[in-house]
């Protein structure tokens, strides 16, 4: 059986591991068709590599560009990347610790110092918070209602909402004369 083309391509790049490498070599030694395919790969690679300017042409401005960069960044008085351009990285752990610390400080502030009207009036005299235990009282005067406090309709709709099936009959009523 002949070699898979993808395998041949890897072999050509020298990326094939043993034992496939030596198996491929063995196969190529006696299979003319695969040898032709291998040659074809080489031709394509050579055609690609032969395209484009030679090394000298490619490197024509190598030194010019370097001195340009050197002048820009490393010359006396050249600009260093400022503080704000510096890349700062934090790990997740340290970020969580920092966040937890902030929360503790924030809550701790309230626990330790609290807030009192005196402090507020020191800072903003015209705006003192009056809401305090001394001057806040409950205005709602709802006494718990007895069963008499509800109308029949309210009782029925409540029972209905709880899923009770209510049957009502009226006994002992005397017809009005």
């Amino acid at each position, binding site marked *: 059986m002949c070699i898979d083309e993808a395998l041949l391509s890897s072999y050509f790049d020298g990326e094939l591991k043993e034992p496939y490498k030596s198996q491929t070599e063995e196969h190529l030694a006696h299979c003319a068709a695969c040898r032709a395919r291998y040659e074809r790969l080489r031709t394509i690679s050579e055609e*690609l590599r032969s*395209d484009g300017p030679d090394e000298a042409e490619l490197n024509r401005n190598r030194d010019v*560009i370097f001195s340009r960069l050197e002048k820009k960044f490393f010359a006396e008085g050249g600009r260093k990347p400022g503080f704000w351009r510096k890349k700062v990285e934090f790990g997740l752990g340290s970020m969580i610790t920092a966040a937890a610390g902030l929360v503790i400080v924030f809550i701790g502030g309230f626990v330790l110092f609290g807030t009192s009207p005196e402090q507020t009036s020191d800072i903003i005299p015209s705006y003192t918070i009056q809401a305090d235990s001394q001057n806040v009282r409950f205005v709602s005067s709802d006494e718990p209602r007895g069963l008499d406090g509800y109308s029949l309709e309210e009782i029925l709709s409540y029972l209905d909402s709880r899923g009770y099936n209510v049957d009502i009959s009226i006994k002992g009523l005397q017809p009005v004369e």
Partner: protein
Amino acid sequence: MEIKSTDSDSFRLVYENCYSVLIRICYHVVYNMDIAEDLVQEAFERFYLKNMTFPSEDEAKYWLIKVVRNLAFNHLRRGRRETQMVEKVRLRASGGTNTRDAQVDLDENETRREVRKAVSELPENLRMVIILKEYGDLDYKAIGKILGISESNVKVRVHRARKKLEESLAGDEAYVY
């Protein structure tokens, strides 16, 4: 060796070792020396301004290749129209004195033009893989790191790219399976 991009010695070392591979890769995306040089210079500027530390020289190289690749493809995407206009102006400004280029154009044989056409017609993901392979002289592992894909994905793409190139270059050259 750790590479700090703002350190003068590190910068020089990376520049010396990476310039030619960067310019070669960049040239084969944009097919224009002046533009390739501009883009490589920009990549090194970003390298410095990022103010990063790389664990090794290779890591710095991969980062730079990644940047150059993005710059080059962005340049292509910005539109050929714009490029052509710039080229027209450039040609007029130089007044046809660049006879060397004209000579090169004359010498440029059919194969070479076909190769460029075939490479340019590859979809972007295949194109970049084959450019990095043939002009960057990088192994699958490095290409995978640069493009953020797995090694086996690189293998498949290289093979597919070659297959497509083979098809479009088949033309006159007969080959036997």
